[in-house]
């Protein structure tokens, strides 16, 4: 597999400008002759579809929800970073770049991250112009909050619903282009394969989720903006429909899958309450601005939290990391919570949670201020648990939240398959081994509004190979394969519901490829997953018919892909004999239990290549070089 990152030459702060100048353009009259197929209508997909249409391209956009507005981005809570330095507190493009590379534990590509930081400022301007109601000061200026892994206040937010407001902004831009006839939206449509013609991505096979009809789409380039794969763990903060299917189908067609084992476990989620649990709910990282994390110093202490005196509480983050305190990055905070619970100091009926306490903040700022900042999160917490965080501390525990891994892309956000571009959480580009809070929204919108509109034109002007139509034999082949898979799933006639398999897979992944990993566990998972997959294909029950709305068929298809994909994650975690960011190999830690990175041997992006069914995937490497940020041991002490 050829992995040329195509990083422009020159000093880092000039690379993007220089590249923008050097890229070939498509003239305005020709743009309308190109049809772009965009899969996904989240922040990345909607912003890309709208902007490309504004430029004149014809766009088809697909999503599996009934409306593009319901893409999973809608659920993001806390905020979006940008190097505006409105607070005059020392922020700059360079600092955001530096924080992101460091926060990612030095496993991201410098040039991409620098560009992300550069365009971050334009995102805020764009969103405000669209009418996104960001939080403001009394004087009318935009206000900011802090997020983990940063010592400046650069996070813009819209109460606890930042993702919703940003997505509704992108959705409105998309609607404008639908209204203008430049975007055709295909909701309730699932992409089931990408079609390659002469090695280039030129089309899609989809299933209409209402009628079951399988269709072909031909285009001049394909964009996947299909989100993350955290649901491989079954329980995660992702929406129920979030999946790996489109990225995985592209992988099977030859696209490299980079760093699949880099998953982010978010430290502050509402703990699991029972077996029936279907998803986990995030309590935004922004809460750590004001909330203090603690456990009783004495593991035997069974008193209610409010009855435990200050002197008998261990504010373990403040103690262990005095300079960042409660605002250490996510991976650090999550592992620290696990450690407390593993050592018996966890609270709640299961012992699998720690306190997040607002009493001091309420005392200091008053209940009104706290309500203004976090009201909707507190309500959400109370609805789920029946307890009020105004009166007693929240109980929280880490949960799977985000996937840094994704399809490999070059500086132009193109995968190793020409014409196949990947944006947002679905690619691997910017967050290395750990994403900082409020940076996913930034990346999704950077990719869609400000990067792909330039780089896609360059592909069309230099790499494109002429029109293709859906009667090309490659479409026949892809459609047949998709139909055969649907028929196979419908024909198994088993007795066990899909979710039973999904839960079991999730448990395997959580136990062996979750917050902490080791060789033995990963090898065990590599044995268990194929066995589970075999049982799935013999005994899964898919009720109903394929030519109608059939949520069980949809789910079965997605879980079938997770059952293969989980294995690649384990291969990746096994190969990486170091600890970095969200990837913690128990064999590689310091005496104090901190992650032990090995830059000498593992400063690479691990890019996995499909080798056919039942064969182990092949590892390719993109060596990372760091010219600007010095590799040091990440310290938040």
């Amino acid at each position, binding site marked *: 597999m050829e992995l040329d990152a195509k990083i422009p030459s020159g000093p880092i702060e000039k690379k993007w400008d220089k590249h923008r100048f050097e890229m070939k353009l498509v003239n305005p009259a020709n743009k309308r002759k190109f049809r772009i197929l965009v899969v996904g209508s989240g922040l990345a997909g909607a912003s890309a579809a709208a902007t490309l249409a*504004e430029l004149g391209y014809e766009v088809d956009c697909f999503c599996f929800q009934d*409306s593009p507005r319901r893409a999973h981005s809608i659920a993001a809570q806390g905020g979006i970073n940008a190097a505006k330095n409105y607070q005059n507190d020392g922020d700059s493009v360079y600092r955001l770049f530096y924080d992101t590379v460091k926060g990612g534990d030095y496993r991201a590509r410098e040039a991409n991250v620098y560009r992300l930081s550069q365009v971050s400022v334009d995102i805020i301007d764009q969103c405000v112009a669209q009418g996104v109601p960001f939080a403001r000061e009394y004087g009318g200026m935009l206000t900011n909050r802090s997020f983990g892994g940063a010592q400046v206040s650069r996070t813009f937010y819209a109460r606890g619903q930042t993702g919703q407001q940003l997505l509704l902004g992108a959705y409105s831009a998309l609607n404008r282009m639908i209204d203008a006839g430049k975007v055709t939206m295909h909701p309730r449509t699932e992409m089931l394969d990408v079609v390659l013609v002469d090695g280039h991505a030129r089309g899609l096979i989809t299933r209409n989720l209402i009628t079951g009809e399988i269709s072909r789409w031909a285009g001049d380039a394909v964009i996947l903006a299909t989100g993350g794969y955290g649901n491989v763990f079954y329980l995660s903060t992702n929406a129920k429909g979030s999946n790996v299917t489109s990225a995985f189908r592209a992988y099977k067609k030859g696209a490299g899958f980079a760093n699949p084992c880099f998953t982010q476990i978010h430290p502050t989620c509402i703990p699991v309450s029972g077996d029936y649990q279907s998803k986990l709910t995030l309590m935004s990282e922004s809460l750590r601005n004001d909330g203090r994390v603690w456990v009783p110093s004495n593991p035997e202490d069974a008193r209610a939290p409010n009855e435990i005196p200050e002197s008998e509480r261990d504010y373990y983050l403040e103690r262990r990391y005095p300079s960042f305190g409660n605002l250490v990055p996510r991976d650090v905070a999550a592992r620290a919570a696990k450690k407390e619970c593993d050592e018996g100091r966890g609270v709640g009926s299961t012992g699998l949670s720690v306190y997040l306490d607002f009493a001091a903040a309420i005392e200091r700022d008053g209940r009104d201020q706290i309500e203004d900042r976090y009201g909707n999160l507190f309500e959400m917490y109370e609805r789920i648990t029946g307890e009020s965080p105004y009166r007693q501390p929240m109980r929280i525990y880490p949960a799977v939240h985000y996937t840094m891994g994704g399809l490999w892309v070059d500086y132009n956000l193109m995968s190793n398959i020409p014409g196949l571009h990947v944006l947002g959480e679905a690619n691997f580009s910017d967050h290395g081994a750990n994403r900082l809070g409020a940076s996913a929204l930034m990346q999704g919108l950077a990719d869609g509004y400000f990067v792909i509109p330039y780089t896609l034109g360059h592909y069309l002007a230099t790499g494109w190979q002429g029109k293709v139509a859906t009667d090309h034999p490659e479409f026949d082949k892809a459609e047949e394969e998709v139909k055969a898979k649907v028929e196979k799933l419908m024909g198994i006639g088993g007795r066990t519901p899909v979710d039973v398999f999904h839960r079991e897979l999730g448990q395997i992944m959580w136990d062996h490829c979750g917050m902490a990993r080791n060789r033995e566990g990963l090898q065990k998972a590599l044995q268990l997953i194929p066995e589970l997959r075999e049982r799935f294909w013999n005994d899964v029950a898919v009720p109903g018919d394929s030519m109608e709305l059939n949520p069980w068929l949809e789910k079965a298809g997605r879980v079938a892909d997770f059952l293969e994909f989980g294995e690649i994650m384990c291969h990746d975690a096994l190969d990486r004999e170091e600890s970095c960011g969200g990837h913690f190999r128990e064999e590689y830690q310091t005496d104090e239990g901190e992650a032990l990175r090995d830059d000498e041997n593992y400063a690479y992006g691990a890019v996995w290549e499909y080798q056919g069914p039942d064969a182990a995937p092949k590892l390719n490497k993109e060596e990372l070089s760091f010219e600007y940020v010095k590799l040091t041991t990440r310290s938040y002490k």
Partner: protein
Amino acid sequence: MKIKLTVWRQRNRNAQGAFKDYEVEASPDMSFLEMFDVLNESLISKGEEPVAFDHDCREGICGACSMVINGSPHGPRQGTTTCQLHMRSFQDGDHIVVEPWRARAFPIIKDLVVDRSSFDRIQQAGGYITVNTGAPQDANAIPIGKAEADEAFDYAACIGCGACVAACPNASAMLFTASKVAHLSLLPQGAPERRDRVRRMVTAMDGEGFGGCTNHGECSAACPKEIGQDAITLLNREFMRAGVSAK
């Protein structure tokens, strides 16, 4: 806790639907949708067809879930979507009747799943600010008072679920349309297009077959985001103003 469920079953848009009874063993900590998951898994294991329903985020923000529970859209708890409703809001032995949204403009696709694409079409008719990517000035060049920004936000919080329509005796989409009109008209960025926007969105709404608003107020009572009737007052004011200026 034992729950007796009576659920609307309908094969597809054109089929005749009917209620069907089920029994489920639930736990008070379960969400309402998790109770449906339990029901569906047991139906699948018995070889019966499970109940189709829309859902995705399961945390009250995507607007996908949509069940009429004992006659109320999203059930008995105020300011709560179906997915956020927990079984502790019910008692052991309760009988719960579950139906889809019912409105001419929301045809039933299957069981509890309805077609809400009419909502998207209303938004496409001007529910936006015309601004190309890359054109804007610095974000802080447009100061907006905190009170105005907060008020605009209150309307922008609409999740597009359609409970307002399901609750309205006329199946009117007035609150949904008004929320977007109010959000954008309260902000300076929305001012240049305010007249066209309100006219076009109201026309689109009428064209989709939603009923008229006769001020019942059921929409706000059912709204999981508690968007108030003042949105509708604002829409009416915008509409009047647009009408006057057209002459």
